[in-house]
């Protein structure tokens, strides 16, 4: 179905001098979309050309609209020779394709050249007229919203969370095509940028189709990555969580107060419409059950365009025999040398209703991996060596499915979200992860990327079965990653096994959820800590105690998760960033030998990483880890492991015991002395940390809690597991000592080193806190200053006599110094907290280690630090509850609904301009999933009319560059560049996000052949990252936004060749463009206009802008 894309080239500025003779430039612009190209006139002799072109119109399929980027090329006209390219701008027009996002893209874009960087700017206006596609067999998925945010976006509410969507597309990498030998680096880079842009568009469209099939209207927690597999191709893959979102009637959100239907109706023409939120034709209609209703479109799309496996589309009815086939088939080019499972032993007890199924469910393979972890107390990893185990999992899963909720019917009950609506998360089991080492082979047929799909399907299956073993039916905080070195690739997936509240996952009405949410919330502040599995049939031994909060359910003594701290969890003191760092040398090898070597090393690394994490956690006096992310990176001659997490003290969990050191040779006097000295140091550190992080839990006597664990049973298990394991690593015997103390045995110098390294971690300077989760537990009075940054370090190891210890030390120093450097740089912001600290390690060459950190520093008010404990979510909860009350007070307004049921949308401008006499936002009706919502809206209109006026003002003004800025971030009088904030968090402190404008997903390549002249590698990369930020900001500003939330730098691949004076870097970033309004601005406006008369404020809005 066609859409019309309209582009206008307005002007350029700060162009580079292209004609040395005149010191000027004769610039013109080529606008290309798909295969159509338009050109502007040549604007002679100016560095600030004013083209003011006509509207270039492209009539295209909406499929193309989704896939293709708009390409704008600025060239210098040359009469005699070929025109020189100045640079390009790629504009992703996706945000224009769905309702309520941006309506126009207009603004200054940096003109980017892959060799020269940014060369001036160009002012472009882009619009799209989209005709709705009613074809149920359509290939496009316009209208599905994408969010990088891994929680429900702030101005929406989840009606249904459908579940996991995934897709991958592959292609040949232009950089490795034969033609690359003859073309210029610029042409290659541009081919690559264009291809990846195209592939991301295609991927997003395909995911959108899946979402529509699931009857969702949005993808939350969308994570797109690409794997540069070198010779074997380029894989772009994405995962996300399909949801049905509903615009929230929160005060600052949209009450445009207009009579006409909103423009999004254009996508909602019939009751065939995929968006469930429009199904509410009357007050009493419940939403249809959407879980699995297959439409013909599914098979159609699968055949023709989807490269995907059927896994995600079909309900699961049979176990998959994938494991053995892949492992055993000798002719298969892929070699799966091992897949590792790791499980945390810190598990919790579930409701008794779940337990009956449990006893029979532990699959053999899990048992093995779990048993490994038993003795280690934590985190076991084992090799997925047996095919038997592989089959066991799915089979058991099948059994369970039949008895479990709707969730169980899904192929992969995974959620990429890390924060959830209150009440969604019932119990948390622990971290589940799986890794697999693969040999890359050439992708022969890009349209059928079966092997890649199968690889991931296999890993996901494993994750799923792990979760089952933990008594959980879902995995939350799920993510996938790869590490590639030459032809070896490690695929990793991890998540947190959890039991979810099924009401959110199916067709439950919103109000029902809301009520239950509220009531549950009151009773289960500690609920998520309770173990989800049967106490008597634990998959591995854990020290269980009664919950310190409710005293009814069992909890483990430590809890590891990949999600954010639930907002209703009770935390004592503050949290802190905990990292485990590890390097292992390996021999250089080729192909299969290499893969085997890696997969042999992996379990040991996992084990050590977990031991380190556990030790550090104990040392901090904390008992839970959130946001755990373990990255294993493979290089030519080494493997690196880096785990980051935020440690907290959960009030519901028992106080952690200390760390005890036990010497192997007790008769040696001086040795004893040394040990006791160390012990003292450790105890001191723990005490100091407790003070530092303000951990002072109320003392509870042991008797009340009851004895932790049935001792004999543990013993027997321990013995069994020891006999099973032949690894020397398992010599640690945790059974001695105090029952909850963690014993470190020092038997050789290695162990000594480990203990030392524990003590070398320096706490951040006073006034600084750091965490890798969204918000710092224990701090909640953020002030508005934020500073997002990216820091990159590369060190060269001296190649001589590298040992594991030296390597570890180097790596440790690298990370510690990097953190210290950050603290120093940001010292002017004290007191502040580094949030969402995200470390990425890569090994670009033999002796090079590259660490990339992206984080945001947020200031907070020290004085109020301990006063309020209310989190934003709790507040919104309260708001929701008041809404409920008010709901009863305005029952009569229902009737207005029936008036507005235009099947077809008028032009979008109505949204902005019209205002209602009654003051009731009738257009809002379309956004409401049910009449109840409407009433809430109305209630709020009346109650909060004054606050809404800010939004009204924005709405009333013609959408254009800078309009929002006038309101929300007044630019300085003499500056024309609006401020765009960037943050990896999903929120902006002290501000309300009023609108999501669309996803930003950008890929850039920069190359130089004059590295020295550009300031060496540091100068080159510094400039490039600054340019990337600039381009992201420019795109957001052009969409009318003033911030990027959930910003992430997914890839930063840096390669250098100093001898040739060359370097190349690839960066991929993404985030959500938003409009935010400062809370202080809201207050100002509301105090200025104390009346709640909506109409008057609307009028005023029109006048003022």
């Amino acid at each position, binding site marked *: 179905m066609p859409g019309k894309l309209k582009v206008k080239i307005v002007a350029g*500025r*700060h162009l580079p001098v292209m004609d040395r003779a005149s010191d000027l430039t004769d610039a013109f612009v080529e606008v290309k979309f798909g295969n159509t190209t338009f050109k502007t006139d040549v604007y002679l002799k100016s560095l600030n050309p004013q083209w003011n072109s006509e509207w270039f119109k492209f009539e295209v399929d909406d499929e193309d609209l989704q896939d293709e980027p708009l390409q704008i090329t600025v060239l210098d006209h040359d009469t005699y020779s070929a025109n020189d390219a100045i640079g390009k701008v790629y504009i992703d027009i996706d945000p224009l394709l769905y309702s309520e996002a941006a309506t126009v893209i207009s603004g*200054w874009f*940096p003109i980017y050249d892959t060799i020269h960087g*940014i060369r001036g*700017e160009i002012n472009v206006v882009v619009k799209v007229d989209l005709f709705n596609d009613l074809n149920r067999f359509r290939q496009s998925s316009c209208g599905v919203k994408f969010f990088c945010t891994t929680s429900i976006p702030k101005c929406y509410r989840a009606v249904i969370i459908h579940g996991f969507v995934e897709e991958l597309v592959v292609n040949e990498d232009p950089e490795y095509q034969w033609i690359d030998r003859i073309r210029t680096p610029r042409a290659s880079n541009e081919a690559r940028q264009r291809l990846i842009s195209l592939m991301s568009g295609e991927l997003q469209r395909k995911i959108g189709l899946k979402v529509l099939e699931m009857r969702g209207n949005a993808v939350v927690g969308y994570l797109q990555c690409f794997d540069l597999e070198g010779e074997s191709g380029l894989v772009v893959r994405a995962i996300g969580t399909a949801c049905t979102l509903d615009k929230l009637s929160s005060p600052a959100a949209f009450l445009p107060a207009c009579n006409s239907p909103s423009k999004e109706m254009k996508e909602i023409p019939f009751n065939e419409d995929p968006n469930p939120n429009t199904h509410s034709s009357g007050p009493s209609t419940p939403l249809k059950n959407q879980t699995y209703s297959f439409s013909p479109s599914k098979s159609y799309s699968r055949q023709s365009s989807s490269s995907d496996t059927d896994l995600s589309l079909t309900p699961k009815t049979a176990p998959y025999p994938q494991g053995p086939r892949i492992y055993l088939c000798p002719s298969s080019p892929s070699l799966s040398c091992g897949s590792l499972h790791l499980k945390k032993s810190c598990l919790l007890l579930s409701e008794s209703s779940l337990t009956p199924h449990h006893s029979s469910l532990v699959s053999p393979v899990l048992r093995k991996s779990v048993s490994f972890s038993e003795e280690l107390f934590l985190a076991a990893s084992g090799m997925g060596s047996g095919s038997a185990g592989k089959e066991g999992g799915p089979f058991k899963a099948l059994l369970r499915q039949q008895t479990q909720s709707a969730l169980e019917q899904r192929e992969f009950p995974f959620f990429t979200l890390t924060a959830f609506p209150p009440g969604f998360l019932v119990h948390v089991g622990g971290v589940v992860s799986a890794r697999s080492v693969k040999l890359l082979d050439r992708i022969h047929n890009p349209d059928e990327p079966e092997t890649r799909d199968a690889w991931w399907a296999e890993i996901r299956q494993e994750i799923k079965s792990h979760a089952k073993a933990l008594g959980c039916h879902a995995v939350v905080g799920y993510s996938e990653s790869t590490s590639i070195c030459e032809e070896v690739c490690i695929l990793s997936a991890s998540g947190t096994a959890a039991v979810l509240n099924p009401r959110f996952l199916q067709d439950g009405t919103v109000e029902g959820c809301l009520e239950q949410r509220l009531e549950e919330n009151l009773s289960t502040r500690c609920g998520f800590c309770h173990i989800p599995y049967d106490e008597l049939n634990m998959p591995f031994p854990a020290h269980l105690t009664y919950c310190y909060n409710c005293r009814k359910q069992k909890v483990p003594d430590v809890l590891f998760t990949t999600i954010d701290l639930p907002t209703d969890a009770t935390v004592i003191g503050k949290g802190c960033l905990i990292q485990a760092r590890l390097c292992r040398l390996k021999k250089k090898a080729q192909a299969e030998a290499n893969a085997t070597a890696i997969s042999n090393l992996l379990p040991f690394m996992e084990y050590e990483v977990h031991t380190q994490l556990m030790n550090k956690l104990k040392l901090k006096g904390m008992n839970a880890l959130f946001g755990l992310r373990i990255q294993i990176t493979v290089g030519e001659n080494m493997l690196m492991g880096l785990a980051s997490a935020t440690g907290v003290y959960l009030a519901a969990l028992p106080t952690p015991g200390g760390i005890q050191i036990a010497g192997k040779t007790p008769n040696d006097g001086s040795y004893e002395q040394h040990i006791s000295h160390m012990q003292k140091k450790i105890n001191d550190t723990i005490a100091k940390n407790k003070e530092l992080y303000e951990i002072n839990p109320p003392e509870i006597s042991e008797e009340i809690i009851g004895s932790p664990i049935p001792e004999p049973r543990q013993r027997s298990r321990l013995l069994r597991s020891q006999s099973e394991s032949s690894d020397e690593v398992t010599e640690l015997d945790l059974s001695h000592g105090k029952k909850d103390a963690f014993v470190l045995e020092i038997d050789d110098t290695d162990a000594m080193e480990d203990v030392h390294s524990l003590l070398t971690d320096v706490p951040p*300077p006073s006034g600084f806190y750091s965490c890798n989760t969204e918000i710092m537990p224990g701090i909640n009075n953020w002030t508005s200053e934020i*500073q*997002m*940054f*990216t*820091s*990159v*370090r*590369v*060190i*060269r*190891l*001296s190649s001589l006599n590298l040992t594991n210890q030296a390597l570890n030390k*180097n790596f440790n*120093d*690298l990370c510690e*110094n990097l953190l*210290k*450097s*950050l*603290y*120093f*740089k940001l*010292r002017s912001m004290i007191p502040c907290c580094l949030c969402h600290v995200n470390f990425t390690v890569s090994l670009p060459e033999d002796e*090079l280690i*590259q660490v990339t950190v992206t984080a945001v520093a947020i200031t907070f008010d020290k004085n109020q630090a301990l006063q309020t404990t209310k989190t934003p979510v709790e507040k919104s909860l309260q708001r929701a509850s008041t809404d409920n009350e008010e709901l009863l007070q305005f029952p009569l307004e229902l009737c207005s609904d029936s008036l507005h049921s235009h099947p077809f949308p008028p032009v979008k401008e109505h949204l902005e301009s019209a205002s209602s006499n009654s003051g009731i936002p009738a257009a809002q009706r379309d956004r409401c999933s049910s009449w109840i919502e409407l009433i809430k809206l109305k209630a709020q209109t009346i109650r909060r009319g004054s606050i809404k006026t800010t939004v009204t003002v924005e709405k009333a003004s013609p959408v254009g560059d800078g309009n929002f800025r006038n309101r929300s971030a007044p630019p*300085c*009088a*003499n*500056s*024309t*560049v609006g*401020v*765009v*904030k*960037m943050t990896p968090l999903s929120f902006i402190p002290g501000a309300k996000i009023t609108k999501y404008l669309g996803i930003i997903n950008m890929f850039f390549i920069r190359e130089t052949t004059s590295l020295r002249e550009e*300031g060496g*590698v*540091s*100068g080159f*990369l*510094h*400039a490039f*990252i*600054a*340019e990337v*930020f*600039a*381009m992201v*900001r*420019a795109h957001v500003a052009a969409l009318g936004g003033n911030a990027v939330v959930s910003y992430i730098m997914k890839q930063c691949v*840096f390669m250098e060749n100093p001898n040739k004076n060359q370097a190349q870097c690839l960066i991929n970033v993404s985030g959500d463009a938003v409009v935010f309004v400062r809370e202080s601005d809201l207050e100002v406006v509301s105090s200025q206009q104390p009346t709640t008369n909506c109409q008057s404020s609307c009028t005023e809005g029109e006048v003022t802008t």
Partner: protein
Amino acid sequence: MTSELDIFVGNTTLIDEDVYRLWLDGYSVTDAVALRVRSGILEQTGATAAVLQSDTMDHYRTFHMLERLLHAPPKLLHQLIFQIPPSRQALLIERYYAFDEAFVREVLGKKLSKGTKKDLDDISTKTGITLKSCRRQFDNFKRVFKVVEEMRGSLVDNIQQHFLLSDRLARDYAAIVFFANNRFETGKKKLQYLSFGDFAFCAELMIQNWTLGAVDSQMDDMDMDLDKEFLQDLKELKVLVADKDLLDLHKSLVCTALRGKLGVFSEMEANFKNLSRGLVNVAAKLTHNKDVRDLFVDLVEKFVEPCRSDHWPLSDVRFFLNQYSASVHSLDGFRLECGGTIWAHCNLHLPGSSNSPASAFQVAGTTSVHHHAQQFFCIFSRYRVSPCWSGWSRTPDLR
């Protein structure tokens, strides 16, 4: 383990004022780190020298990238690469264009050419300012000069508009450009006691009164070049000393008015003719380029030095010059004989005019380039001869 690459990029560009100053002052990274260590920052923050090194490098890199933009400050405001709050932008620009008094004193009035640039290392050794910093300052002067050279409109306004400088700094640049354009000699030993502030004050008055712009505000170059016609007219002042009657009359008028008010009355009376001759000769010679250049040297030689040798206090000099120019207007013969328009005009304007020497002095005093500054100057204003100067308190014997 060696660090290959080490960068930090913030969404809002971090600017450390201290490091910026060190960078502007032309210190190398190593020197800057050493200086920062000495400032005790390590103790305050608990950082290590390596951290400091990395931080300094990072800032230097940022500044290096910003430097290109600072060359055309409006670009800094419109560029998209660095997100810098407006107040910081202003600070960056202002600091970048700030100059060292010692340095500017060395190049003031010199041609801003490659030749002068070559001499910068001498200046650097002499003033103790790093060569890098000298180059930056010199290039700034040259850049401003080039941009505003051919422009219409007020010099100060042009500078402000194109370089976004504060009013103060723009005025200083106007003075520098003016001096460079007219190549006034300021380097002579005799002139060494004068500060840049003194010259800048003179330049401002000269731009107001002596240039083409003072006549007609729509000319190219208007504030930079002296009005040739005016200089020509000044020749006619010769009558003041050539005509004996007029000279006597003038003298008696001045003496009558100043009797009892001047501490050095007798010296003044005795020297009147010499002083008057000196002043008028300086004025009359200004038709030659070379003499224009030597204006300040001549003034010092012909007027300041005699006064100084007689130990005139500052206030007396001011009184004398006021009276000297005021009484000219009451000279009948002068008014009639010498194409009197100039002087007629004068009569109308002088009494309460804000440009009268006294108020000029006050202006200088309040803007107070330097509190102790000596306003020494002689203004041959367009419509009057109004020499004004204000002592030389740096010469202790005059107190």
